[in-house]
């Protein structure tokens, strides 16, 4: 490159990026190699982070769908997907509190009911949700059914996003739930999560028939879904409801309900640590690749850097060029990695039926990781520039 012998002016004429930019573009095969190396490390991190988010989102999806402001559940319930219901009369008590617009029960079973695939006659555990069809507190995605029909005994709506082997898509006309014949009146698109292969929704009467209350009477409530009258303060209402229901029933806001589940997944399941470790290893390997690339580059350019030093450029400027170049390399790896992972997320998410999505947050987190990966490596490698001795050029 050609620079003027006046550093002050040269800085302006070379500008902020061009030297780093030109260094990067000087050797196209090397650029390809370095963006490939960094890119794959970024891709590895993106996949791990994407899987982790898919895992958490899948377990939170149904809770997010619930149409309510305040929720009642048995205080001993440690996560959403476990059957631990409370007495229906406690929900009645809450309904009587001033400021409560509505209070309806969600019934659920995760490990209690079996779905018989109508095609091959095989039984599979299935997640079952139930509610009063006149008060559909669980707005199902892409619901394609007449909820009124759900009031009839022995009717069900199935999940056309469920795993294939359940035989819910195409929608069968009839099937069996734990030995009871049910008529299938429609479908929705929810999809499985890491623990449930598929979901069936029935009316409250059908649920009571499938899992009768051992003490008789109305079935116990898995989750009480409460809506408040407009303008009421949810924290005040939460306290007012908690004051009237027994201590064995917890009163939670939606945020608290989500937090309880998130905390359970983070503390107890193995998926969190697995994906975090995967990301960490990707980061370390990525750092190493970046170091290798930047170090080689700096070594090759050493005579040029030494020449620039001899011409009067300050070390600070040269360090800045190296850091700029590292930033550019980071982007050169990150952009293709994000594009490829969007594609891979689609493919893997489609096959595994999991909510694998590229989000702005995921893109930013990975960009941050990529930049720190490359900049840390650059700082480690830049010592060579600092030590570039003009005399060595000759």
């Amino acid at each position, binding site marked *: 490159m050609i620079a003027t012998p006046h550093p002050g002016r040269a800085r302006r004429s070379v500008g902020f990026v061009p030297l780093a930019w030109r260094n990067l573009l000087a050797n196209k095969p090397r650029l390809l190699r370095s963006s490939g190396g960094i890119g794959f490390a970024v*891709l590895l991190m993106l*996949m791990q982070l994407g899987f982790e988010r898919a895992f958490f989102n899948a377990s939170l999806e149904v809770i997010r769908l619930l149409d309510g402001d305040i929720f009642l559940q048995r205080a001993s319930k*440690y996560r959403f997907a476990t059957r631990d219901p409370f007495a229906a009369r406690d929900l009645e008590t809450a309904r009587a509190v001033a400021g409560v617009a509505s209070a309806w029960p969600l019934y659920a079973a995760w490990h209690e009911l079996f779905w018989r695939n109508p095609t091959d006659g095989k*039984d599979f555990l299935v997640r079952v949700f139930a509610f009063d069809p006149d008060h559909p507190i669980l707005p199902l995605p892409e619901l394609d059914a007449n909820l009124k029909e759900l009031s009839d005994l022995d009717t069900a709506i199935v999940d056309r996003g469920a795993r294939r082997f359940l035989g819910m898509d195409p929608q069968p006309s009839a099937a069996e739930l734990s030995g009871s014949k049910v008529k299938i009146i429609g479908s929705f698109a929810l999809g499985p999560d890491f623990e449930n292969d598929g979901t069936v929704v029935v009316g409250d009467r059908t649920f009571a028939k499938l899992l009768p209350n051992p003490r008789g009477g109305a079935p116990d409530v898995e989750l009480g879904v409460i809506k408040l009258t407009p303008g009421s303060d949810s924290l005040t209402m939460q306290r007012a409801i908690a004051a009237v229901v027994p201590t064995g029933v917890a009163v939670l806001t939606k945020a608290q309900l989500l937090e309880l589940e998130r905390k359970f997944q983070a503390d107890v399941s*193995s998926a969190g*640590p697995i994906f975090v*470790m*995967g990301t960490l290893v990707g980061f370390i*390997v990525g750092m190493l690749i970046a170091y*290798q690339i930047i170090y080689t580059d700096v070594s090759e350019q050493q005579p040029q850097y030494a020449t620039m030093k001899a011409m009067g450029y300050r070390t600070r400027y040269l360090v800045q060029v190296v850091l700029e170049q590292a930033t550019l390399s980071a982007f050169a790896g990150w952009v293709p990695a994000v594009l490829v992972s969007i594609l891979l997320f689609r493919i893997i998410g489609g096959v595994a039926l999991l909510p694998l999505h590229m989000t702005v947050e995921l893109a930013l987190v990975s960009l941050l990781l990529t930049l720190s990966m490359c900049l840390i490596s650059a700082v480690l490698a830049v010592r060579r520039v600092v030590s570039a001795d003009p005399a060595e050029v000759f």
Partner: protein
Amino acid sequence: MNFALAWRILTHDKGRTALAVAGVFLAIVLVFVQLGFFIAVPRGGMLLYDRTRFDLLVASTAYEYQVQPGAFPLSQLDRAKTAPEVALAAPLYFGSAKWRSGEDGKAPDVFVIGLDPQDPIFDSEDIHRQLSLLNRPDTILVDSATRPMFGPLTAGRVVEIESDKLMIGGDYVLGTGFMGLGVILISAKNFVRLFPFRNLDQVNLGLIQLKPRVDPDRAAASLRNLLGGDIRVFTRPELEAHETAYWTTRTSVGLLFGSGLIISFIVGVMVVYQILATLVGRQLPQFATLKAVGYGDRFLVGTVITMALLIVLTSFFPALAAAVGVYAVIRDETLLPVEMSGARIAAVFAATLAMAAASALLSMSSLRRADPADLFG
């Protein structure tokens, strides 16, 4: 000659070679870690089987996987006992219950295994010593991997499970795998008291131990004949294949960790390639000189491959040692049985050689650029 030259190149600039070895080291650790995750899940699902003694497993035709085994009549197991090959036929009962004595008033689900305390079905002598405690009324043994949310697992603690008060007789080391957050052992007699809707005539699994020198495959065939079509009989290899297939194909686990494994392998190739290309690039004038004095391309290619192998082999063993350490951390964090095995070492070693070969091939293009004329350019 190839070797001598490769060796000289690598020892000439020790700093760079150390960096290269460190890079490849990390790439291999990466592959080990991802492979560990990939295998850990089916292994976690096999945990109970891996640590119990049996030659054949008898189950219902509704058998899906360990935690969803279906049930079959005890009379079938009694019939199996009459076969001349069979030394022991032990029934197992599975159930899930609410552990109402958790921390913070929570009631986590506990996986309950009901068994006959007389049956010597465990690998661990320590469990056998403690099994007699289960003969006492309302006494249980708790798996030591049961999560802290269940509260202390101290012997003598009385806990409420469903609506029964049971006493912890002691804890044992087996592992919870994917059975649940906590696992307890209980005698069959106490099992039906805990689950009033269950009865001992419906068994979830039957563990068959064969008499010495009986061929498991042949015994399995004769048991299938004896028990008829409603019963499945697995030999150990069949069971392992079935469980692994369940976890890798039926759940999303295989796909997620499989893709992680493939990408980690590609990243490994990238690392080795990066390193090798740099080394070749630095020696380009020397390679050109060799060409000029009459060495053929084949010799240069051989040298690069030898260099790749030397770097990879030097990195492999430290990486193996590090991976053993990383596995210990993963075991602690996930409570999954991530263990180093001969097969896994062989697999990663083969992957490592493939990494070296792939990256050596990729760096050939830079080698071809070694043009004697450039020397004087």
